C-alpha cells in the first residue's frame, strides 16, 4: 500500500527552564498509508501528541527543537523543511487536525459558521456566500441537527459532542488527505464518544482520507484503526496491524496495556499491571481468578440513604430564583465491606450524591442513616465524630493535595483534628506505616506533592483517608484521571484495602468497565434521577432501563467489536 505520510527518525526536544533539555520524542519512524487509519497509542508522556503536532509544525517555536535529521515526508515533501507559507497552505487543506478539548479549541467569540467558513475561504476560492452554504452542508454531514440555525451559534451554546462535530466539520471542509485526531473523544461522555468515533470512521471511509488517531485508550483503537503504533517515553514499542496488536502482541508493554484495563466480561481478583509483564515469570495466575461480586443476604448495612435530594437555587431576573435539581430522591444501601458503584454521565448528579453524604453540600431533603443516626440532622459539632468515618478520595490527584504541605503534614493533620494517636511521635510512625501500606517509600513523608506522579498522589490521598480508619470511603472518579496502567495499580490497592479493612466503598465513575470491575452493586444515574440499582453482574447482563442499555452499548469493545465486518 502506498504511504501518504512517512515519519522518519523524528526527534523532538524541549527547552526547559534553566537551560535544561527534555527529549520528548526519541527518533521514531512510522508510516501512514493512504486511505487507512493509524492509531498512535500511549500513556501520558509517551510523546504521541508531540509527534503528531510536529508533523503539522504546531509545536511552540520558542521551546521546541526538532532535530535536523528528522523527516516528515508528505506527498514527496519533507514538511519540516517547507517554507512557512507553503506549510500554512497545507495545514487545513491537505492535513487537518482535531483536538482533545473542543470547547477551548474553538474560538469563543466567533460563530461556528464563521469558523468553518474561514477554512474554506482560506484554502478555496469560494465567495463568502458559497463558503457559508458549504459550511452548512458540512454541519449537516457531521450530524449537527438544524444546521442552518446552529451556524450562528457560538461554541459555548453547543454541547461538547456538537462542538467536537464542529471541529470535525472544520477539519474535513477542504477534503484533507490526512486527518490528525488528537485524543478527540477523551473529554467526552461515553455515549458521545461512541458517536464521534463512528463519525470519524464513517468520514474516513466516505472521503477516502487517512486518519492519524492519537489516543491513550487501546479499547477505542480496536474499533477504528488499521494500524497501531504503541509509544512509551518517546519511543515506539511496537507497530503492527490492529489485528496483530490485539491478537498477538509482542511487546510486554503492549500486552500490559491490553490487560490492565478492566473489561466488562472479566473480573480477575487483581488486575494485571505492567510490572507483571516485565517480570520473566509473567502474570501471577492466582490473581486472574475471577472474583464474585454482589450484595448478599445478611450483609450488614452501614449506610442507608433515603430520598436524598439536592437543589441549587440560581438568581434569575430581578428577584426571581430558579431551582436546579441536581439529585432527586436517591435511595440506596451500602453494605459493610462491599462496593456500591455510582455510574452516570456528566451532569447526572453522581458526584453531588457523594458530596451531600459527607455534608460537603447541604442536602435539600432526605435522610442519610449511618449506624442508625441521620447524619444530615446532626449539629456541626456532633457531626465531627462521624466525619472521620466517611471519607472521600477525589478525582484530580493534582488538585486534592495541598501543594504547600509535605506529605507528612497531609497525613498527620487529620489525626490531630480527630485526636488519633497519643503524640507526634506515634502519629508520625502511624503515617509512615500507612505510606508503606499504600506502597510509598518512607522518604515520601518529607516530600511535597509536586514531587509525585498522579498515581502516587492518589495513593497519598488514600493514605490520608486511612489515617482516620473510615467505615465508608467515597471514591469520586478517583481513578479516572490516571493512565490505564496506573489505574490498575490503584484499583488493586483499593481492592486490597477493602479486603484488609472491610471498608465499604461508594465508587463514583463514568467508566462502566471500571465500575463493573470493582462494584458489588451498581446505581445508574441520569440527570439527577436514579435510573436503576442492581447487583453489578445483573445490571450488565440484564439492563432493565433504556438508558442503562444505551450506556452499555457505548462501551468501546476493543478488538472484538471491530472484527464484525463493517466495511
Amino acid at each position, binding site marked *: 500500500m502506498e504511504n501518504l505520510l512517512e515519519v522518519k527518525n523524528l526527534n523532538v526536544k524541549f527547552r526547559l527552564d534553566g537551560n535544561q533539555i527534555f527529549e520528548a520524542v526519541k527518533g521514531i519512524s512510522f508510516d501512514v498509508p493512504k486511505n487507512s487509519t493509524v492509531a498512535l497509542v500511549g500513556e501520558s508522556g509517551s510523546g504521541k501528541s508531540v509527534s503528531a503536532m510536529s508533523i*503539522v509544525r*504546531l509545536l511552540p517555536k*520558542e521551546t521546541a527543537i526538532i532535530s535536523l535529521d528528522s523527516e516528515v515526508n508528505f506527498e514527496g515533501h519533507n514538511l519540516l523543511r517547507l517554507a512557512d*507559507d507553503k506549510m*500554512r*497552505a*497545507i*495545514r*487545513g*487543506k491537505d492535513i*487537518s*487536525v482535531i*483536538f482533545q*478539548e473542543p470547547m*477551548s*479549541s*474553538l*474560538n*469563543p*467569540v*466567533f460563530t461556528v459558521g464563521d469558523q468553518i467558513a*474561514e*477554512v474554506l475561504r*482560506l*484554502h478555496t476560492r469560494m465567495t463568502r456566500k458559497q463558503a457559508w452554504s458549504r459550511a452548512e452542508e458540512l454541519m449537516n454531514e457531521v450530524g449537527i441537527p438544524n444546521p442552518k440555525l446552529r451556524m450562528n451559534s*457560538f461554541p*459555548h*451554546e453547543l454541547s461538547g459532542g456538537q462542538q467536537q462535530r464542529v*471541529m470535525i466539520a*472544520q477539519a474535513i471542509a477542504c477534503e484533507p488527505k490526512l486527518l490528525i485526531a488528537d485524543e478527540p473523544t477523551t473529554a467526552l461522555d461515553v455515549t458521545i464518544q461512541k458517536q464521534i468515533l463512528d463519525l470519524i470512521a464513517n468520514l474516513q471511509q466516505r472521503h477516502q482520507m487517512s486518519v492519524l488517531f492519537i489516543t491513550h485508550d487501546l479499547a477505542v483503537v480496536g474499533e477504528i484503526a488499521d494500524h497501531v503504533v504503541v509509544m512509551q517515553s518517546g519511543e515506539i514499542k511496537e507497530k503492527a496491524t490492529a489485528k496483530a496488536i490485539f491478537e498477538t502482541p509482542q511487546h510486554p508493554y503492549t500486552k500490559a496495556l491490553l490487560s490492565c484495563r478492566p473489561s466488562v466480561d472479566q473480573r480477575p481478583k487483581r488486575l494485571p499491571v505492567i510490572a507483571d509483564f516485565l517480570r520473566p515469570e509473567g502474570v501471577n495466575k492466582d490473581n486472574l481468578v475471577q472474583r464474585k461480586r454482589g450484595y448478599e443476604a445478611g450483609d450488614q448495612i452501614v449506610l442507608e440513604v433515603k430520598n436524598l435530594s439536592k437543589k441549587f437555587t*440560581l*438568581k*434569575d*431576573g*430581578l*428577584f426571581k430564583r430558579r431551582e436546579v435539581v441536581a439529585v432527586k430522591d436517591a435511595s440506596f444501601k451500602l453494605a459493610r465491606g462491599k462496593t456500591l458503584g455510582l455510574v452516570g454521565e456528566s451532569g447526572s448528579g453522581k458526584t453531588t450524591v457523594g458530596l451531600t453524604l459527607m455534608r460537603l453540600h447541604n442536602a435539600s431533603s432526605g435522610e442519610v442513616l449511618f449506624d442508625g443516626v441521620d447524619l444530615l440532622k446532626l449539629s456541626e459539632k456532633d457531626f465531627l465524630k462521624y466525619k472521620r468515618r466517611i471519607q472521600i478520595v477525589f478525582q484530580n490527584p493534582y488538585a486534592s493535595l495541598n501543594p504547600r504541605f509535605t506529605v507528612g503534614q497531609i497525613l498527620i493533620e487529620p489525626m490531630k483534628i480527630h485526636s488519633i494517636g497519643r503524640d507526634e511521635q506515634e502519629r508520625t510512625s502511624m503515617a509512615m506505616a500507612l505510606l508503606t501500606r499504600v506502597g510509598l517509600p518512607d522518604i515520601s513523608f518529607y516530600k511535597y506533592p509536586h514531587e509525585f506522579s498522579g498515581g502516587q498522589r492518589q495513593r497519598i490521598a488514600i493514605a490520608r483517608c486511612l489515617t482516620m480508619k473510615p467505615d465508608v470511603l467515597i471514591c469520586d472518579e478517583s481513578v479516572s484521571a490516571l493512565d490505564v496502567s496506573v489505574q490498575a495499580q490503584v484499583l488493586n490497592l483499593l481492592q486490597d484495602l477493602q479486603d484488609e479493612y472491610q471498608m465499604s466503598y461508594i465508587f463514583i465513575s463514568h467508566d462502566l468497565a471500571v465500575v463493573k470491575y470493582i462494584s458489588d452493586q451498581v446505581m445508574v444515574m441520569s440527570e439527577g434521577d436514579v435510573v436503576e440499582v442492581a447487583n453489578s453482574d445483573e445490571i450488565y447482563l440484564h439492563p432493565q432501563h433504556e438508558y442503562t442499555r444505551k450506556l452499555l452499548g457505548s462501551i468501546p469493545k476493543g478488538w472484538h467489536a471491530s472484527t464484525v465486518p463493517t466495511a
Partner: protein
Amino acid sequence: MGAYVLRRLWQMIPTLAGVMLLIFVLFNWVGGDPALVLAGKITNKDQIENIRKQLGVDQPAYVQLGYFAFEVATGFTCTWKSYTDKAEPPKLDAKTPGSAADSATKAKANSGCQAVRSWATNEEVPKILTTRITPTLTIMIPVLILETLLGVILAIGVAYARGTLTDRMIMMICTVAMSVSFLVYIIVAQYIFGFQLGWFPVQGWSDSFWKNITYYAPLPIALAVFVGLAPALRLYRSFFLDEINNEYVRTARAKGVPEKTVMMKHVLRNAMIPILTNIGIALPGIFVGSFLLETFFSIPGLGREILVAVNRSDFPVIKAATVYLAMVTMIINLLVDVLYKAVDPRVTFK
C-alpha cells in the same frame, strides 16, 4: 437583560448610600469646621454661630445626613430655615425667585427651594459640576482614546515580536518610564516644551473648544498619554500573550490561518475582553481628571475643583462631586458589563 439592568440599578442604592455615609462621616463629622473658613479674619462666636446656622452644620449629625440623602434624592435643597419652620419637604417647582424686588419676595426666596450652593462661592453646585466637567473631559477623552489605541496597537506589535530584543527593549523602556513620578514629568515637560522650546503654551484655557484642543490641551494630553501608555502597554501585552497561549490559536494555525490574521482577528477579538475590563476600570477616572495636570496647566476642571473644595471645606461641592462620581462609576461599570455581551458572547446576564 432588562431585568438584569434593573437589578443592577437596584443594587446601586445600597452602594450609593454607603458612599454618602462614608463621605459624610469623613468630611462632616471629623473634618474641619467650614464656618471658620468662611468667617473671615476677625470673627466672634455670634458670627460663627450664624454661619453654622446658615449652613445647617449646627444640626445634629443624623439630621444633616437625612437632608443630605434628601438633597441627593431631589437634587435640590432648601435653606435650613424652611426645613425647620415648615417641617415639610420643599417643592421642586419653587426654584429660584424671579425678578420681583420687594422684601417679602426676598424673604420667601430665602426660605424657598434652591439648588445646592457652594459654601465658599455661593455658586450652584450642579452648575459647578457641569461647567468643570467639560475641560476635564476635553483632556481626558482624548487621553483615553489615544492611550487605548496606541496601547492596543503597540501591544499587538510587541506581542507579535514577543521574546525578541525589540520586545524586551520596549518592555524595559516601559518599566523605566513607569518609575518616574507624574509630578516630575509635568514639571520637566512644562519647563522644556512649554518654556524652553516654546512648542506649547505653558498654561491656560479658553472658551473655544477648538482653541483648547488644538492649543492648550496637546501638552497635558501628551503627558497623560505618555504616562498612561507604559502601564497600558505592559498590561495589554500580557493580555495578548495570555490569549496566544490558548488552544483556539493552535486551531486557527492548524486551519492554515496566516499568523498576522491569527493576531489581528482571533487573538485581538478575545484580548478585547480583558482590555474592555481595564478600560472600564479606567473610565470613571476620566470624569475626575488629573488634579495635577489641571493645577499645573490652569485647566478649570473637576479635579482641581475638588481639591479646592476640600481645602475650603466646601462640603456641598464635596458631597455633590462624590455622589455624582460614584454614580458615574457605577453606571459605567454597568455599561461596561452590558458591553461585554457585545465582545464576549459567552456572557449571560444573571
